[in-house]
């Protein structure tokens, strides 16, 4: 089971526990950076005072202005929470799907979550300008998110249904159904973009490039249950995914309920990624590459891979978001652009150093 890493004689992997601890600290540091850094500069002691007063429920500001309080509590904190949730969900989903498909190139786009969500989002932007007004007041700002979430979920369930035969999900059919429906959804998206005005296509373009801007507590609360469900599922399916790496029949003989495993995995991914995409658009790179980064450093065991991916995914997205809001301030760079610009060269560098480690 353990992957041999040719060409790096003498190098040993860090122990899993230590690796997880380092990643946890990294995620924590990224979260702190997301709170501390931004175009509006807030001194660390004031930031701390704001947080302390928020935790203890002190209403009267002490030693800081109302402005700093609003920036920290209403802008940065929900943004950081949402970023951590979305990053973790995307990376874990990538790891799970790569395990289920036994394919290193699997990412959430493959089971239709991202193309389905994108189709729903562009349909909402182009066709349903007034539709959002039919929702109750509190949900109105979330209407695009809700539409995208529904689009992603429906597409994935449809793909799952297509791959289902006599109670058995064929992974190969799932893959092809995913490719076909994904292409169909992309064609629908293309058609709608063609029909849209410049303003609408610009709106959609920025959505597809991802952004944590506009993050609210409501958005974070909407995403949280689905991401938490995904995190809870991790230990349940970790052993099964390890066994699946040997093949479906082998896993079955090892006592893994393979069908149940596939269903849980796909449902959890659809919910978790759907929620992440709905809240902050399509963010490329993280789902595909973060699991590989973890495998290259900590090995392929899912018991470590899944939680490590969650931590690293959260850290990567939070740091990318800090860069997105700092580099072009007062304008904001698209988040997906930053994740790919920073992440891809780093990944290539690691790949060149450990050539062959991906098999």
């Amino acid at each position: 089971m353990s992957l041999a890493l040719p060409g790096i004689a003498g190098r040993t992997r860090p122990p899993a526990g230590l690796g997880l601890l380092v990643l946890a600290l990294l995620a924590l540091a990224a979260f702190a950076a997301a709170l501390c850094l931004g175009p509006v500069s807030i001194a660390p002691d004031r930031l701390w005072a704001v947080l302390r007063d928020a935790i203890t429920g002190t209403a009267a500001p002490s030693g800081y202005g109302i402005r700093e309080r609003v920036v920290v509590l209403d802008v940065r904190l929900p943004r950081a929470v949402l970023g951590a949730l979305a990053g973790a969900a995307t990376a874990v989903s990538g790891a799970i799907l790569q395990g289920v498909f036994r394919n290193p190139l699997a990412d959430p786009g493959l089971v239709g979550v991202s193309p389905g969500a994108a189709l729903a989002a562009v349909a909402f932007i182009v066709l349903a300008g007034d539709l959002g007004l039919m929702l109750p007041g509190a949900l109105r700002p979330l209407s695009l998110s809700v539409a995208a979430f529904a689009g992603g979920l429906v597409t994935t369930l449809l793909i799952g249904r297509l791959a289902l035969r006599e109670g058995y999900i064929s992974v190969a059919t799932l893959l092809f159904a995913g490719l076909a429906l994904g292409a169909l959804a992309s064609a629908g998206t293309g058609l709608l973009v063609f029909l849209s005005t410049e303003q609408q296509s610009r709106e959609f373009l920025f959505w597809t490039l991802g952004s944590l801007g506009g993050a609210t507590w409501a958005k974070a609360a909407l995403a949280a249950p689905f991401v938490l469900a995904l995190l809870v599922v991790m230990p349940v399916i970790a052993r099964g995914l390890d066994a699946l790496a040997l093949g479906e029949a082998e896993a079955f003989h090892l006592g893994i309920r393979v069908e149940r495993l596939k269903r849980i995995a796909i449902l959890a991914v659809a919910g978790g990624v759907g929620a992440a995409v709905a809240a902050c658009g399509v963010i490329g790179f993280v789902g595909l590459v973060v699991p590989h980064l973890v495998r290259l450093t900590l090995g392929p065991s899912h018991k470590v891979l899944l939680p490590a991916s969650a931590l690293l995914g959260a850290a990567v997205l939070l740091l990318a978001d800090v860069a997105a809001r700092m580099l072009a301030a007062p304008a904001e760079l698209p988040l997906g652009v930053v994740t790919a610009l920073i992440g891809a060269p780093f990944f290539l560098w690691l790949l060149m150093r450990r050539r062959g480690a991906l098999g």
Partner: protein
Amino acid sequence: MRSVLKSLALVALVATVPVLAGPPQAFAQHKVTDAAGRQVEVRDTSRVVSIGGAVTEILFALGLGDRVVGVDQTSTYPAEARSRPNVGYSRTLAPEGVLSADPSLILAIEGAGPPSTLDVLKQASVPVVLVPDGHTPESVVRKIEIIAEAMGVSEKGRALADAVRADFATLAQGVAQLKGKPRAVFVLSASGGAPVVGGAGTSADAMFHLAGVTNAMAGISGFKPAVDEVALTADPDAVVVMTDGGQKLTADVIFSLPAFKGTPAARDDRLVALPGSYLLGFGPRAPQAARDLALALHPGESLPPLPSRPWAGSGQ
């Protein structure tokens, strides 16, 4: 008696001259220098495809609406323009689509495209006149002048240009008397993440300038997403949106965004919504649009009225 007959004959003669001359200058032959600096020879102005909301508005304001046989998607005013065949969106035109309206002249706003389509159209036997775009009073006047020249109605063009110039002057005098200079943000869209705002160099920025308003997002150039904490600390007194954008941007939606929550605009619930073609089109209605914007953003103050103009209706 003879003198009466004589004068009657004279009147009859004068009245027949335009009839003999046919529709005014429809078959004139003249050259016009367009926005690309090309000398375009115009022979027949009887069937015009009009690309760009401002171009269409000017054609109708010149009383030449009946010559318009095709428009683009941005030509939404006046209402009659919408009854003309639609040849597509101004930046994604297809050559055949434009030619299918069987035009004898194509008037397109600078920036229409794609360039490949314009190249094909320029090769075709139909003359293409590119109308210079711009976001200043002078550029509006320039649009009117070049369109009137291309259509062979320079005289009418001068009259329209003078009227619009006078409206801009009246507006500027009034705006100069306004007391405050409120800060506002133009939000193009805000559906997914960060609000996409109008920075320096945009039509929205130019409109703010005309209306005596400070663009709180002048630090950004072009239409780009703004970091929400920057928008927040820019302290806008108002948020301006288009009524006909993608997602309907209501006060609910805008003021629940972290970028605007708690700003003076949110506190006073000051959201100004105007049709995009009216607000950002920079056609002959630009002074009226700027006046509406100025009045909405300077509550409690007044501006001298602009003369009633046949081309500036209800602002739709």
